[in-house]
């Protein structure tokens, strides 16, 4: 159970690096951004491919439509903004022009979740996974660190169909092997265990690793699975693991409503019922603070995961 942090990095930079690489390898890839090119780390792509980068201004609804139009003739548009402004603000544009229209648009969402930090609740979305996964045919991806985000960015270009790719602002441990291929829809088992399964996604994966190590020292055997693809969910992996452990904790930087936990609980209810605890936010907005302060305040850290594991084990 060793995970080597090669140095803290932000996942948005993983996206930027993946997009820059796509710019060099795939001539069909184009990019649009709504006045947040630096924040999204799309500037390298824009610098190297000015003819394939379209500045959309602070006009996200139009950007979604332009992306859909570009996709019709075989371009692969990556459209970027903050997670709240590229989901909730333009939900109907995504619903009609991307999801229902089945256009090959990659919706790239940075600053997702509460770890956006000091800007506060207007900019912190914890509803986006729910919104996006409700749309028929939408693929929803939430990688955990820089390397995985870079690999996911490259992988979604090869995938035909609408994708929601979610990443964030804070620097977090980078532990995914640099050469690990990203397989959309395939859950990644990080730790084998027998007492309880933790399904974690995004920034909560590292917190879950810390929690698993603490629990191990107390003699609790944790199975940890990184759900980087929330939709389509790797149901087989979920069922197989829970059939063995019989207890579940789901950890995510999102509301309970519409999140990974509810999704996993639904799969279990239909296949192999087991107690589930949620490490996520219950019906609240965020607020200003540092990412670390907010993760602690909202119970989105390894300490909360440890507590939830103990609670779920008591319900077994």
């Amino acid at each position, binding site marked *: 159970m060793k995970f080597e942090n090669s140095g803290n990095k932000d996942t948005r930079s993983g996206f930027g690096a993946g997009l820059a690489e796509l710019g060099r390898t795939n001539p069909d890839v*184009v990019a649009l951004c709504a006045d947040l090119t630096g924040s999204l780390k799309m500037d390298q792509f824009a610098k190297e491919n000015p*003819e*394939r980068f*379209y*500045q*959309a*201004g602070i*006009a996200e*609804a*139009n*950007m*979604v*439509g*332009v*992306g*859909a*139009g*570009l*996709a*019709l*003739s*075989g*371009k692969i*548009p990556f459209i970027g903004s903050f997670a709240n402004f590229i989901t909730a603000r333009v939900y*109907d*544009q995504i*619903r*009609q*022009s991307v999801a*229902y*229209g*089945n*256009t090959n648009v990659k919706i790239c969402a940075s600053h997702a979740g509460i770890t956006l930090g000091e800007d506060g609740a207007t900019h912190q979305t914890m509803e986006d996974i729910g919104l996006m996964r409700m749309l028929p045919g939408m693929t929803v991806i939430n990688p955990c660190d820089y390397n995985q985000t870079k690999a996911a960015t490259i992988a979604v270009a090869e995938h035909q169909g609408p994708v929601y790719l979610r990443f964030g602002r804070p620097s977090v441990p980078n532990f995914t092997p640099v050469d690990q291929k990203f397989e959309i829809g395939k859950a990644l088992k990080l730790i084998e265990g027998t007492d309880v399964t933790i399904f974690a996604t995004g920034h909560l994966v590292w917190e879950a690793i810390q929690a698993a190590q603490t629990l191990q020292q107390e003699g609790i055997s944790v199975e940890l699975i990184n759900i980087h693809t929330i939709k389509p969910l790797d149901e087989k992996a979920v069922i197989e693991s829970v059939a063995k452990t019989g207890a579940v904790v789901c950890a995510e930087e999102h509301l309970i409503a519409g999140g990974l936990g509810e999704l996993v609980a639904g799969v279990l209810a239909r296949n192999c019922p087991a107690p589930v605890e949620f490490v996520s936010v219950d019906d609240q907005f965020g607020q200003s603070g540092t990412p670390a302060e907010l993760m602690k305040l909202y119970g989105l850290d390894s300490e909360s995961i440890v507590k939830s594991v103990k609670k779920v084990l008591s319900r077994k």
Partner: protein
Amino acid sequence: MCDTNQLSKISTQVRRDILRMVTLAKSGHPGGSMSSTDILTALFFKVMKHSPENWTRDGKGHDMFFLSAGHMTPVLYSVMARSGYFPVSELASFRKCGTRLQGHPSIRKGVPGIYEAAGSLGQGLSVALGAALAKKANNDPNFVYVLLGDGESQEGQVWEAAMFGAQHKVDNVIAMTDWNGQQIDGTVDSVMSLGDLQGKWEKFGWHCIVADGHDFGCIEDAFKSAQCESGKGKPVMILFKTEMGHGVDFMAGTCEWHGKAPSAELCEKGLAQLEETLGDF
């Protein structure tokens, strides 16, 4: 190539199709369909370079048309069927369960000629601009046409798209507005005035043409002028002055028939005013 007389015959038949489709479906949007009938007849039968038999969704090598005001499916499906995208007889299935001819345009049912979903208003101009940018990137010299409603132009996204089109010099798009002055709740001026619509488009950096949308000579001249303006750095908007429900006296000039089907009896009354020129479906 159709002359004015032939276009006039086609448009009369298209209006018959519209009336009969919405009457059969007991729902649909005849008013705006009939105000834009002459524009789309000219576009599909004379102006646009397209090959219905070899249609592909990527639009490569031919002009593309987007209906942004998606509720105008009766006129769209009629001109599509009459120009060969699918059998005219299929018009009878409009809005029926299982049909390819959904109430609003859908790409889900495999009907050729539809590039993108529409219906929730204000999105088509953005999509058309994207398609036009792709044509430029692919060195495809053909045009992208898109039709908006005037009421639809109350949507903020239309003006986001207006700024984007000017900023990126998308001068291979030819947008059109069916400027009939009516929307569901009343006249556009009474609901939310667009003010100086021509001035707005010009100030937003577009080349704007105003034309009579019921005179085929004027319509063709407007399209020729629009095509001449292409490649000069500005996108083009043609504001076609039209009349809601044009061609049937009791539907003309009122918002009453925006989204309502006539009774069988009223339909007959309307059909009596429109000569069957090409054979009903």
